[in-house]
């Protein structure tokens, strides 16, 4: 860091990690993949005012890190020499207590859980033709130190179970999947039932196998809780990341204090939820994570701000800087993001809908932050007729613009739930939770083939 500052940088940061990973995957109850590995590397980041440079390497020798810092600095020219401040060690809050380190459990025991799940999915229905089950474990030790005096270290442990069931008929194949996980150890398997998850995945697949193509058009859409929160993640969350806001590349830029959503909508990004999939002690700049209210009763309250974009925007940082690993410079990202619970019961929402689409299970999606245009797939959907859930429909896609959809949310349920996803963006693929209670969007464009 001294080498970096000597080149005229006004801020320097070193991020280093050593990560043990394990992955076991089964196809049809038989181990297909068993992998373990060691990620190892460091990234050096320098600021020159509102410009940043980044370098990374696997060679963590002092000599090489200094070389990376100097090579980076050569591209920029600072006009004064700064002094690094003394280190302050981060105080730990124990946000993600871990009971059983995943690598302390025999691989055979993990495989047995996957086998039980495969069996449960297979025996759910004769139409289930294939199953895929998996277990992913990560034990990451990270260190962040910077010239502002931050010295943060954290052991991050994550466990995730995945199950996919495929149902087949003579002409069709449909699949269902679930992937529960958290910033937790092997005790994940005490919290969830792999068999129940497997049966749920199988149920979706079998239901969709019998489904007719979804009609296309514009009508009310009821999106269920849990992974349904991907709508907010895509339609709004990405547009609230300072990465987009600072460049004026978001439809929500310059709208703090304004009504951007229906008054029924309160949305929160909370990196401190105990054992949450996107939770951590600190973000990847060494700032303690926080509970940030993004939207309160429809009013835009805050963006998600990292250090560099905070400088560019003149905004305070929010503990939201994240990165996949040392290969990526950190930037503002979501952690665990969700729409807060409202007052309607799910039954009331369905009953109040004359005709529409009920999206019980959502798939992934994507968004162009500049325009807010998003799209996502409905994995398990039903038509609603006369206030009742009617026949299942498949192949539906929801498309729209974030700013418009947020204003069109006209009912918010009381059954908040979160679900786990991997979010890919500028600083790589990171674990994020999406979440919401059941919501209804007054009108949406639904793509389908019916």
């Amino acid at each position, binding site marked *: 860091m001294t080498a970096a500052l000597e080149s005229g940088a006004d801020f320097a940061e070193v991020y280093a990690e050593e990560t043990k990973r394990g992955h076991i995957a089964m196809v049809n109850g038989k181990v297909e993949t*068993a992998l373990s*590995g060691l990620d190892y590397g460091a990234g050096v980041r320098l600021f020159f005012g509102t410009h940043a440079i980044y370098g990374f390497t696997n060679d963590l020798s002092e000599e090489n890190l200094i070389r990376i810092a100097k090579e980076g600095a050569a*591209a920029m020219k600072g006009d004064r020499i700064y002094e690094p401040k003394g280190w302050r060690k981060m105080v730990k809050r124990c946000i993600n207590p871990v009971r059983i380190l995943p690598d302390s459990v025999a691989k055979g025991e993990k495989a047995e859980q996957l086998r039980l799940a495969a069996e449960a999915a297979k025996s759910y229905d004769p139409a289930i033709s294939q199953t895929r089950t998996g277990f992913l474990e990560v034990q990451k030790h990270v260190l962040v130190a910077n010239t502002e005096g931050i010295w943060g270290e954290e052991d991050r442990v994550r466990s995730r179970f995945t199950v996919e069931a495929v149902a087949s008929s003579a002409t069709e194949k449909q699949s269902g999947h679930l992937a529960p996980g958290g910033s937790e150890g092997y005790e994940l398997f005490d919290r969830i039932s792999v068999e129940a998850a497997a049966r749920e995945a199988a149920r979706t697949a079998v239901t969709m196998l019998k489904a007719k193509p979804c009609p296309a058009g514009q009508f009310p859409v009821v999106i269920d809780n849990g992974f349904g929160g991907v709508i907010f993640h895509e339609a709004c969350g990405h547009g609230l990341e300072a990465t987009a806001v600072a460049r004026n590349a978001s439809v929500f830029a310059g709208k703090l204090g304004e009504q951007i959503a229906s008054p029924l909508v309160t949305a929160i990004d909370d990196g401190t939820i105990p054992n949450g999939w996107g939770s951590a002690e600190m973000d990847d700049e060494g700032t303690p994570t926080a509970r940030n209210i993004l939207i309160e009763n429809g009013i835009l309250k805050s963006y998600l701000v990292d250090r560099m974009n905070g400088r560019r925007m003149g905004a305070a940082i929010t503990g939201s800087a994240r990165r996949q690993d040392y290969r990526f410079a950190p930037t503002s990202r979501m952690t665990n993001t969700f729409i807060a619970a409202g007052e309607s019961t799910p039954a009331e929402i369905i009953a109040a809908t004359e005709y529409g689409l009920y999206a019980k299970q959502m798939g992934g999606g994507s968004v162009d932050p500049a325009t807010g245009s998003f*799209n996502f797939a409905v994995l398990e959907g039903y038509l609603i007729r006369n206030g009742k859930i009617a026949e299942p429909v498949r192949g539906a*896609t929801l498309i729209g613009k974030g700013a418009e959809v947020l204003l069109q949310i006209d009912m918010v349920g009381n059954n908040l739930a979160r679900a786990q996803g991997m979010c890919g963006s500028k600083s790589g693929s990171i674990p994020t939770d999406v979440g919401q209670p059941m919501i209804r969007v007054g009108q949406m464009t*639904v793509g389908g083939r019916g």
Partner: protein
Amino acid sequence: MERTEFQEKVIAAALAEGFTECEVYYRGGTSFEVLILEGEIASYENSRQEGLSFRGNFQGRTGYAYTERLEEAAIPFLLTGAKGNAALLTPEEKEELYEGEESYPLLVGVHEGLERLTPEEKIVAAKRMEQAALAGAEEIASLDYCVLGTALTEVAIKNSKGLDVSFAKNFATAYVSAIAKKGEETKTGSFFWKDRNWEGFDPEKTGREAAKRAAAHLGAASVPSGKYAVILDGKPMAALLGAFCGVFFAENAQKGFSLLQGKAGTKIASEQVTLRDDALLAGGYASTPFDSEGVSGKNKAIIEKGELKTLLYNRKSAKKDGVPSTGNGFKAALTGSVKTACTNFYLQKGEHTVERLIQEMQNGLLLTDFMGLHAGTNSVSGDFSLSAEGFLVENGQITRPVEQITIAGNFYRLLEKIEAVGEDLYFSSGGIGSPSVLAREMDIAGL
């Protein structure tokens, strides 16, 4: 530690620990990327990284492990991990390592001109792209991205059966995404260039094209739902081929994850469709003399004039079907085992200009982009439902831009429906390519 020396140390340690045969796959390289915004460096990245993946046979089973720490201290972690992983697998899944071939195709991987380029020269080129984009159309408000990058990667495989191959290649990439604004309306348009021939790079054209594309979509509106004739230009068609390329992997077919099992020799697409996977394509992004198993790269027709000729094989899936590997056994990353992957995978171009295709279509949609490919496609059934944008074509003329529509269909049916193929072969960043194609009776959801 030096690469070759470390590879040899790992092999020697593994054989001493009781592995009967083993292999060390190395991947390393350097990369550079600069992002220019408003005439200044908004981000700048410089890296050097390497890692290796080990596989070895222990007590009749194959185990994998990888490390990015190329130090002696990591060797016990590798070998213990590989042994534990091997124990979970059945002896039937055991992988025979490959002793290699007499000779390999000669490919030029490293373009010296690119290696000699200084960071300053790259920064200047990126700034020229930005200026050209900002001046490229009246409505351009700002740029979303203006990135220039170069990368050099090297792969080296060594095993206890004598395989010893290595190949290095470099590339430059440029990407500009421009934001056009008119009143309340915002549109983005992008242009992407990737080549190792730096001398052929035109920064001004790259910037200008992005600007033109953004401006051309201003004033876009949806269209009524219904069945339309559609021209998919190279970009969305390549994206679709990328999303569904897995259906051509024998590995997936054997497990029931593709509907093409047993279809070799039958007609699965229209006469117009010839689909190739060519590892030896001159200048191709994915060109390589050997795959991750050491099998030599080849140029294959997967579909020739509508007939399925072959699936893509790695050594394991080839053995199951009793055929030779097509040289498509690749590791996506160090973290993965050898699966199947495409090399330069593309729909062979036809003879029609895009103008001619538009004439032939008369009325319909010219689609220029898809969104949400990772979510709106079902790789098992072939179903897709994707948000799209493009232009409305009426009486053989482009009349206005179109947005907020979805196109739904099935990949297998689409292959059968392709009526004409353009001459405008486009390659995406991953080495997947397509010209424009014309298909009728596609389901569009809009108003």
